[in-house]
């Protein structure tokens, strides 16, 4: 099978959807000839034209407002924000409008839109361009939140997101863009709310999101040399969350570590941890649940400090050993 980068997989998903559905279009800053801040839409304007690959003014409020309106009239807009940090400017449209319209109109109006946006640190883009704010969105009823970690997942999940009749926030981690995996050319979609066991293991469960999936897999490979079998689960979508897969895994391993890049305090790891604590898996826990998350600091510009602000592979290795009481 051919390999695609994550970035190419996202582009392929959009192109395939646009080819088969006239209502799908993309709007965002510099997504036309320039191809978007990270090059995701590069070349698309040549196939689909400026009507469907719409450059917008520099106003996230305007872009998101337009998308909500277009979705309400029956279109299926994909809006791209250059950095997920700018979602704060689109907040009213996403949180107060998009999330609630279907509910408030008793189902008579719906908002089938996807807000795609690069998130996370690691590119030296500093405090205003490197955050992971997915927990904010996951907190709001009416919004779906997707966080793919691989090219294969990105394509399948984005197609499902575009097909979804509800607003979906689609977080693409900047460092994932260049990662590659086998991606089938044909159409496929991955249902939202289905976690993926990225690696099977028996000793400890790691639930990781986005780039942390890759770091956790690296840690797991390292730990395997010491005979520790780590199970790595990627929930892929935070809303809806596949609690069943996580619960079953924790019942098997008796130990849970949640790893995400977002600041630990108030992060989504707390949600996963509490879900397990409330579930039947509680009685299977043989160690306190552990959360690894970013430090409560703005992401620093200095590259070394930037690395230090979020969990590293060795942090994960240490956490596993601590949880297994094997330091």
């Amino acid at each position, binding site marked *: 099978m051919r390999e695609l980068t994550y970035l190419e997989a996202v582009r392929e998903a959009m192109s395939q959807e646009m080819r088969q559905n006239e209502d799908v279009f993309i709007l965002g800053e510099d997504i036309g000839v320039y191809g978007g801040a990270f090059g995701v839409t590069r070349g698309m304007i040549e196939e689909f034209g400026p009507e469907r690959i719409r450059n917008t003014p520099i106003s996230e409020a305007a872009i998101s407002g337009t998308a909500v309106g277009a979705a309400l009239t029956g279109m299926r807009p994909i809006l791209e924000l250059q950095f997920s940090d700018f979602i704060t400017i689109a907040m009213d449209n996403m949180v107060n409008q998009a999330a609630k319209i279907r509910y408030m109109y008793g189902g008579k109006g719906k908002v089938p839109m996807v807000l795609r946006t690069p998130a996370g640190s690691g590119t030296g883009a500093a405090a205003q361009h490197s955050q992971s704010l997915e927990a904010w969105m996951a907190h709001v009823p009416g919004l779906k939140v997707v966080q793919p970690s691989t090219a294969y997942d990105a394509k399948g999940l984005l197609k499902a997101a575009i097909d979804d009749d509800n607003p979906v926030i689609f977080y693409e981690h900047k460092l994932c863009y260049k990662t590659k995996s086998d991606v089938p050319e044909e159409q496929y979609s991955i249902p939202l709310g289905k976690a993926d066991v990225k690696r099977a293991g028996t000793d400890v469960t790691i639930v990781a999101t986005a780039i942390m999936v890759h770091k956790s897999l690296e840690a797991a490979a390292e730990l395997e040399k010491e005979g520790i079998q780590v199970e790595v689960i990627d929930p892929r979508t935070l809303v809806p969350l596949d609690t069943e897969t996580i619960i079953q895994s924790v019942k098997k391993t*008796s130990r849970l570590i949640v790893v995400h890049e977002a600041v630990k305090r108030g992060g989504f790891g707390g949600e996963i941890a509490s879900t397990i604590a409330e579930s039947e898996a*509680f*009685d*299977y*826990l*043989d*160690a306190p649940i552990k959360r690894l998350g970013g430090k409560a600091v703005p992401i620093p510009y200095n590259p070394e400090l930037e690395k230090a602000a979020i969990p590293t592979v060795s942090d994960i290795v240490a956490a596993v050993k601590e949880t297994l*009481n094997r330091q």
Partner: protein
Amino acid sequence: MAKEIFMPKLSSTMEVGTLLQWFKKEGDSVEVGEPLFEIMTDKINIEVESYEEGILLKKYFEEDDEVPINHIVGYIGEAGEQVPETPPGESGAAKEQEEVSDSRQAQTEDLAEQGITETTSEEVENEPTETAETAEKLRATPAARRVAREESVTLAEVPGSGPNGRIHQIDVMAFASSNAAPKATPLAKKVAEAEGIDLNAVTGTGSQGKIYRADVEGAKQPASPSAPTPAPTPAPTPAPTPVAAGGKRVKLEGIRKVVAQRMLQSKTTAPHVTLTTEVDMTETIQLRKKLLGLIEQQTGFRVSYTEMIMKAVATSLSLHPSINVTLEGNEIVYREEINLGLAVAVDDGLLVPVVKNANQKGLSAITAECKRLGKAARDSKLKPDEMAGGTFTVSNLGMYAIDAFTPVINQPESAILGVGRINEKPVGVNGVIELRPMMVLSLSFDHRVINGAPAAAFLTELKEVLEQPFKLLV
């Protein structure tokens, strides 16, 4: 209905008992007379036997917990019966305790002395005790708790391998599998351990193959036909707690604690005066030489100077009843019996077994009794009544290089004799300096109840008896 198990009151001065070990787990079946738990009291360790038959439903206290007398330490009943989660309060507050009728108290003590717990239900109150509130909480993971439930393991017995002793499921599993060892009574286990017999090789005749002592003995027969002696319960040694500064710290508890309290109480309530005199032991030494063989033939024991001094003290006390007294409230009680306490040093303190009616006993009888009581004291096997009722105490440090000392009165007695070593010294005899075996006697007495003159008269009498031991015949 579930029956309470009480902390027994084993002596008139006992206020709390320290739980040393449980022989049963919650859920174990218990037969009447089976040892339930072991306690350390003022002066002894004793196994408390069950007065009831049934299932041990609840244990409220763990090892090293101090439990006030008559507190409920657990329940015995039928499986599944509901008992309180926290220990009900002391059965009858301390004040009430004193108001309890004499017959009841006597009954309690009778039972207690037999090592049997009294079980009454009407005195239960529903206030949790302080001890229970301060008891440390068990740390175990949810998984460990689940496995413990499934395997019917009592978590409190499982050593935890995690941080701060947290119990993990692997600990419970290891415990459960190690516990799959054959079931045996505590006595059978002791005998097996003492004889080095593997319980796995013993066929139990009890219910579900439970091994009794007889089974262990049966298994042992071919190897050695002699009767088994259960291994003595080792005296509890307080666990040293490491400290950063180095050195060890030992908690003041049990016998040591009681000795500390008693000594302080005695020294602070009784004005001690100590008289000393020097005794020429020539004649006593001669007499002992003559009696050694005789007494050894009779009793199997070699008579010691301690026993000869005890005999002399008993005789002298009978001539000086004003020394054989106790202060009770505002009254001086002249004790009719002469019960001589003998201070015995043990590993972690001081025990004073009592030779009752010493004035009515011959030297052989006193020798035999002192030897027996001394051994029992060192083996922590003294019974409460063997330490009760003393009227005067003898404390002998003559085996050390001690000439004289000021002993502390063993209250409620009013006087105590300290005995130093026998040491050859030049003394003047009829104008000539001679070397004589001399010994210093120190008499401490409570000046509240005994005056100097009668104390001096008693000590003089004692000196004369020891210097002319034929007086013992009179």
